[in-house]
């Protein structure tokens, strides 16, 4: 049995507290009037940043596509400052959302990986099942937090989603947007919340029963009754998951840019959450092994996890490039604006993420021997996780804060807050059951797994 060390508990609580304080500061320091924005930007100009912000302000509107440049001209300078004001007010919300989604996505990726192990009746992985179950423990609290943020956004308490503004679907309003109005049958607050309940509910349900059956199989392995049940619900879950994950990615990420669409977006987000989840399994397994637990996990298991990290990183790049190249080549204005915003305003995170998520893992993890060296896997894993945080950041920020982005106190605090929460929940869940799923029919094969 694993016992949560008081050091780790204290560490995660400190992270949560620092994160919460930082995030509160972020919310409180967001400007509330145009005058404050002017003051902030004038102050920034001394530092040399102000010009860049003022120049790029206009581009961000392309991302929304809801405002015309003509209007900006008639309103004079204040329209621009008002726009920056909205972006800066969005910033702490967006930072909170990116971090909440990122850590939730890790738990969801691990849940999908876990289900695949059962559906494929894989023999190598059962020694890692308890680690995976513990990571998916974050699914429920993380999902509920994400749901609260989504519900608030869907009801337009904040301005994260452009489509949630009642004005854009009101023909009499000067904000009226014909394209969003055409999509309002799907993109509306009520439907958004109902869908989120269905998606999250289905995933919670599978998580609950999968873990329950896994524990019952330990107590009574005769006839593998519980294992067979796990197999059936895992296969059913995977079918449910791939549809709902795809729809959730449209709702929760793609709808930040409601004019833009990509047909492989669901796959793209799936690759991101899958590789983040597998990387987290590897990191936590290596951590537990370094503390003297999981003595039945050998370096062939680490090798296999690293192979998955390597392979899914390439898979992610393949999908990223498939999405990018077609849009770049066809150069259709309403599609290509998505990448123009990112390349012009987000050049460093946009290309930096490609280096972190593709070039780095390919070069570091290509050699077979390096996949068995723990510190290599840990180093590659940390870079991959940071890279996929930036990936989520790049998907959400351009549409919410536009050119006014910077990694500030809100972003770092939000990551610390959810990291602390994640660590506390996951390591607490590890203490709840023996670290070896001894009832699993493949456990002996897994213990002797050798490559």
């Amino acid at each position, binding site marked *: 049995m694993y016992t949560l060390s008081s050091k780790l508990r204290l560490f995660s609580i400190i992270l949560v507290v620092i994160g919460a304080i930082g995030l509160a500061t972020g919310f409180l320091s967001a400007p509330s009037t145009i005058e404050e924005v002017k003051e902030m930007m004038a102050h920034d100009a001394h530092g040399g940043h102000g010009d860049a912000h003022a120049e790029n302000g206009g581009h961000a509107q392309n991302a929304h596509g809801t405002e015309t440049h003509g209007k900006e001209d008639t309103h004079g300078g204040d329209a621009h400052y008002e726009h920056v004001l909205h972006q800066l007010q969005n910033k702490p919300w967006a930072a909170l959302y990116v971090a909440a989604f990122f850590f939730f996505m890790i738990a969801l990726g691990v849940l999908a990986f876990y289900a695949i192990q059962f559906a494929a009746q894989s023999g190598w992985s059962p020694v890692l099942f308890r680690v995976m179950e513990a990571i998916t423990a974050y699914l429920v609290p993380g999902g509920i937090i994400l749901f609260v943020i989504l519900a608030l956004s869907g009801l337009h308490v904040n301005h994260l989603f452009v489509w949630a503004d009642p004005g854009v679907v009101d023909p009499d309003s000067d904000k009226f947007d014909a394209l969003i109005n055409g999509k309002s049958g799907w993109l509306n607050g009520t439907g958004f919340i109902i869908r989120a309940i269905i998606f999250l509910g289905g995933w919670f349900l599978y998580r609950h029963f999968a873990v329950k059956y896994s524990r019952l199989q330990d107590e009574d392995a005769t006839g593998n009754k519980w294992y067979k049940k796990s197999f059936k619900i895992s296969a059913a879950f995977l079918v449910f998951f791939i549809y709902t994950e795809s729809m959730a990615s449209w709702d929760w990420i793609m709808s930040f840019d409601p004019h833009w669409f990509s047909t492989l977006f669901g796959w793209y987000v799936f690759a991101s959450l899958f590789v983040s989840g597998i990387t987290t399994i590897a990191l936590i397994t290596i951590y537990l092994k370094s503390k003297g637990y999981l003595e039945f996990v050998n370096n062939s298991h680490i090798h296999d996890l690293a192979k998955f990290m390597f392979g899914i990183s390439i898979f992610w790049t393949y999908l990223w*490039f498939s999405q*990018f*190249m077609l849009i*770049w*080549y*066809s*150069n259709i204005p309403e599609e290509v604006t998505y990448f123009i915003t990112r390349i012009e305003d987000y050049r460093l995170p946009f290309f930096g993420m490609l280096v972190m998520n593709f070039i780095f893992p390919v070069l570091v993890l*290509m*050699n*077979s021997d390096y996949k068995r060296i723990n510190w290599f896997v840990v180093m590659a894993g940390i870079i991959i996780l940071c890279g996929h945080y930036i990936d989520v950041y790049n998907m959400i920020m351009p549409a919410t804060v536009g050119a006014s982005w910077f990694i500030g106190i809100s972003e770092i605090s939000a990551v610390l807050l959810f990291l602390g929460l994640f660590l506390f929940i996951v390591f607490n869940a590890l203490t709840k059951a023996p670290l070896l799923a001894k009832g699993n029919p493949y456990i002996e094969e897994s213990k002797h797994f*050798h490559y």
Partner: protein
Amino acid sequence: MASKVIHALYTDDDVLMDAVKQVRAEHYHIEEVYTPFPVHGLDKAMGLAPTRLAITSFMYGCVGLTFAISMMNYIMIEDWPQNIGGKPSFSYLENMPAFVPIMFELTVFFAAHLMVITFYMRSKLWPFKEAENPDVRTTDDHFLMELDASHQDVDSMISFLSNTGAVEIKVIDKQEDNH
């Protein structure tokens, strides 16, 4: 010089694996093992050096990538630039996304084909090559271990090998030049 080898035949890959380990523990020299299919872990049990094929494959991939880049640069940028989709081809870097599929395919093509050819050459395989199998049954359901028996006590080797589960043991004098 005449050399003497012993052929020990087995009918099961697990028995063969155990036999190889025992023979190695006794410090007899295994010349070669002939199997009808690849036996997982046999190379490690025999103490063969790890393959360097992966390194050659990586180098061939780099050659393929370089070839693709220089080829597309010559065709599309230097020799005959065209305006495709409103993207005039005057800079390789600006048109790079369009060339990525070609760069990828040629990297894989070079790595895969040259690696297979290297493997054939290293294994001394080429068209019309005479089979080296000492016993045709090794292409069906038998495993054959060939041991060096020169300067050894042949009788004790035979009794040792029969204890490792060999179904048939033959002593062969190689009169022709031994390689």
